[in-house]
């Protein structure tokens, strides 16, 4: 009798507690009490959506939009756990180009935007951008392209002048039609000004070179790992590592705190710069460096680095409305406006070939015609194939380059170790 009494008390307590906890856990998403459809959009850094969202809400009084911003490095991990848990993800989520391959294999957690008619939008984007956002031979539309990175090379005019190099951006671009030429410029620079590093990090040079090849770590045909026998990988690695061996790099982790300090101290002269990096350089170098940095064409022709997509997770309650919003946000008119407000480069020819965009100059970068430079680079683009496990393999090679830069390993030892580790990571 006593036993059951206590048993009952505890079980009642347990049930009450559990109920309270469950109630506490629930309540994510849902609609506002006023009958409005509530949509959330999960992004990282600045997508330039704040004004556009206000406009969209004004045009659609029945829709309320909430913008959720987290740091980029947390964004994709958070999204992965939300997809795994089946709840918590925003109605629309941004996915960065380097991460989208990873989510492609979990496509059944996402809405196939083709079901809502996305395929008729295909012509809006540069073909490579559209393809990056699709899978299953183009039948499954995972995400609609937002911006792109394109690729240029930023350099410091005052440091180039000190080293007796040309400073005009056209002339600078002509110095390095290929990456081999870029290395020669590095040698000249180091001879003249041995105390300044020519480039911030070998990692970004490596990425830029590799992204200009058609295939990198994985075969286009069957997604199998070819990083160990693809000569292009070894060539790109050796080229970039040679800068590190000659101590011509700052051996900095890209976009880290140290990188910012080095920018401020003007301790390196060049850096690879996709369109979105301009804002980072400006923020790091500060106002006193205004007009000192400039933008030239990158060696080896055009390229792309970065840019994102908007996808709609299946767990959301309003896939149709979410798709409509994503479609609107990624349309050329809106991309053009975002470019003007934030500098994020449009990924649609109708936007990046628009005179309004091509005539844009960036005052901080010595009034470089960034609209034109980045637009051209995107036109000449040979898209590289990214395998499903690309993001697992990439850090392995970056670490290897870092070991060369810090003098811990020779280029060939570092490469051999990286290939070994990459094989494991790609298993």
């Amino acid at each position, binding site marked *: 009798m006593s036993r059951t009494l206590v048993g009952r008390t505890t079980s009642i*307590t347990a049930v009450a507690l559990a109920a309270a906890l469950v109630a506490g856990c629930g309540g994510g998403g849902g609609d506002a009490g006023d009958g409005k459809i509530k949509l959330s959009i999960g992004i990282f850094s600045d997508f330039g959506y704040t004004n556009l969202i206000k406009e969209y809400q004004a045009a659609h009084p029945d829709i309320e939009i909430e913008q959720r911003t987290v740091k980029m490095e947390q964004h994709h991990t958070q999204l992965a756990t939300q997809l795994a848990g089946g709840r918590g993800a925003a109605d629309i989520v941004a996915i960065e180009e380097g991460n989208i391959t990873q989510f492609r294999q979990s496509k059944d957690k996402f809405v196939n935007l083709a079901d809502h008619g996305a395929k008729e939008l295909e012509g809006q984007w540069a073909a490579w951008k559209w393809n990056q956002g699709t899978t299953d031979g183009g039948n499954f539309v995972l995400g609609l392209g937002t911006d792109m990175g394109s690729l240029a090379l930023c350099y410091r005019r005052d440091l180039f002048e000190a080293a007796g190099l040309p400073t005009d951006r056209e002339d600078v671009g002509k110095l390095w039609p290929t990456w081999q030429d870029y290395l020669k410029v590095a040698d000249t620079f180091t001879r003249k000004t041995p105390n300044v590093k020519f480039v911030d990090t070998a990692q970004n040079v490596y990425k830029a070179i590799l992204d200009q090849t058609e295939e990198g770590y994985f075969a286009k045909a069957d997604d199998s790992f070819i990083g160990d026998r693809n000569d292009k990988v070894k060539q790109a690695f050796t080229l970039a590592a040679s800068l590190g061996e000659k101590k011509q790099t700052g051996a900095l982790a890209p976009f880290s*705190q140290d990188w910012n300090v080095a920018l401020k101290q003007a301790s390196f002269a060049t850096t690879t710069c996709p369109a979105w990096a301009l804002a980072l350089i400006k923020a790091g170098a500060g106002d006193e460096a205004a007009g000192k940095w400039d933008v030239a064409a990158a060696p080896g022709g055009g390229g792309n680095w970065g840019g994102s997509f908007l996808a709609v997770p299946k767990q959301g309650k309003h896939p149709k409305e979410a798709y409509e919003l994503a479609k609107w946000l990624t349309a050329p008119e809106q991309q053009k406006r975002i470019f003007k407000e934030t500098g994020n480069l449009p990924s649609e020819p109708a936007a990046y070939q628009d005179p309004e965009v091509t005539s844009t100059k960036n005052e901080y970068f010595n009034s470089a015609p960034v609209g034109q430079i980045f637009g051209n680079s995107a036109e000449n683009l040979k898209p590289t194939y990214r395998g499903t496990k690309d993001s697992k393999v990439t850090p392995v090679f970056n670490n290897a380059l870092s070991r060369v830069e810090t003098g811990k390993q020779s280029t060939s030892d570092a490469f051999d170790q990286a290939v070994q580790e990459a094989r494991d990571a790609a298993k």
Partner: protein
Amino acid sequence: MTVAPERAAGRGTTPLPPPAQRLSWRDKLGRLDTKYTPYVIVAPFFVVFGIFGLYPLLYTAWVSLHEWQLIDGDQGFTGLANYTELLSDKNFWNALGNTVSLFLLSTIPQLFAALGLAALLDRGLRGRAFWRAGVLLPNVISVAAVALVFAQLYGRDFGIVNALLGFVGVDPVDWRASTWASHLAISSMVMWRWTGYNALIYLAAMQSVPKDMYESAMLDGASRWRVFWSITVPSIRPTILFTVIVSTIGGMQLFVEPQLFDPGGTATGTGGDDRQFQTLVMYLYEKGFRLFDAGYSSAIAWVLFLVILVVAVVNFTVARRIASKG
């Protein structure tokens, strides 16, 4: 149960007077109350622990027996495959070695420093409250902020630590590049955060040591040093054991400090370019949340749990012996 026959007997023969029966009921209720109420009161803890502690623990064990992709979930039962792979994974042993090294480097000096600090605070200092609150400050500050500041202090090219070393003629150290330098830097971060906290715990214990013991020791002509080791330390033995266990658990789970010390951050950080300061939890995070291999990650979590258990028991035994000898 024991009262049942009595009651049956009472009912069968002469009925007991009603007040007595009521009393025995109240009595029984009272006894039930004293006996079981404590359990009812502590029950919520166990219920919450069951939901948020035990259940995830068991679920993790279940996941670790599968090939489990973070997003797509179960890819098939594989038994102990994750564990056998783990045992031959050199990155795992590397992470275990780093964790132990960081733990020893940060915990041992930290606890001794905390003891010394507590002894100083225990003396009649002027502005006592100020000093006592002061030592806790590093612990109150967000770990992310601490890591950010230390990352700058230990900057390779423009860090203050290297600048100071330069004054005494030492070449700049690349604090992230080599194993020893990175371990020292990270340990200093951990010590900065936890020394004051442990000192306050020791101080609280020291204040409950009877003063007459000190007085008689002083009368016998014992030095302060002798008094400290022969009276203070043995008297606060249980507290020392407590801090050793808590530091062990914390030390083996070290994650935020080294992760934020890595310029690659949480997105691509592997604890340095050669995993020179990757701890077990960092490896768990890399496998589970960057490479999406939740099964393997869960196996690491369970092994980590067992390692902590073993280390805690060893520490407990060793610390008890040392403390009792003192």
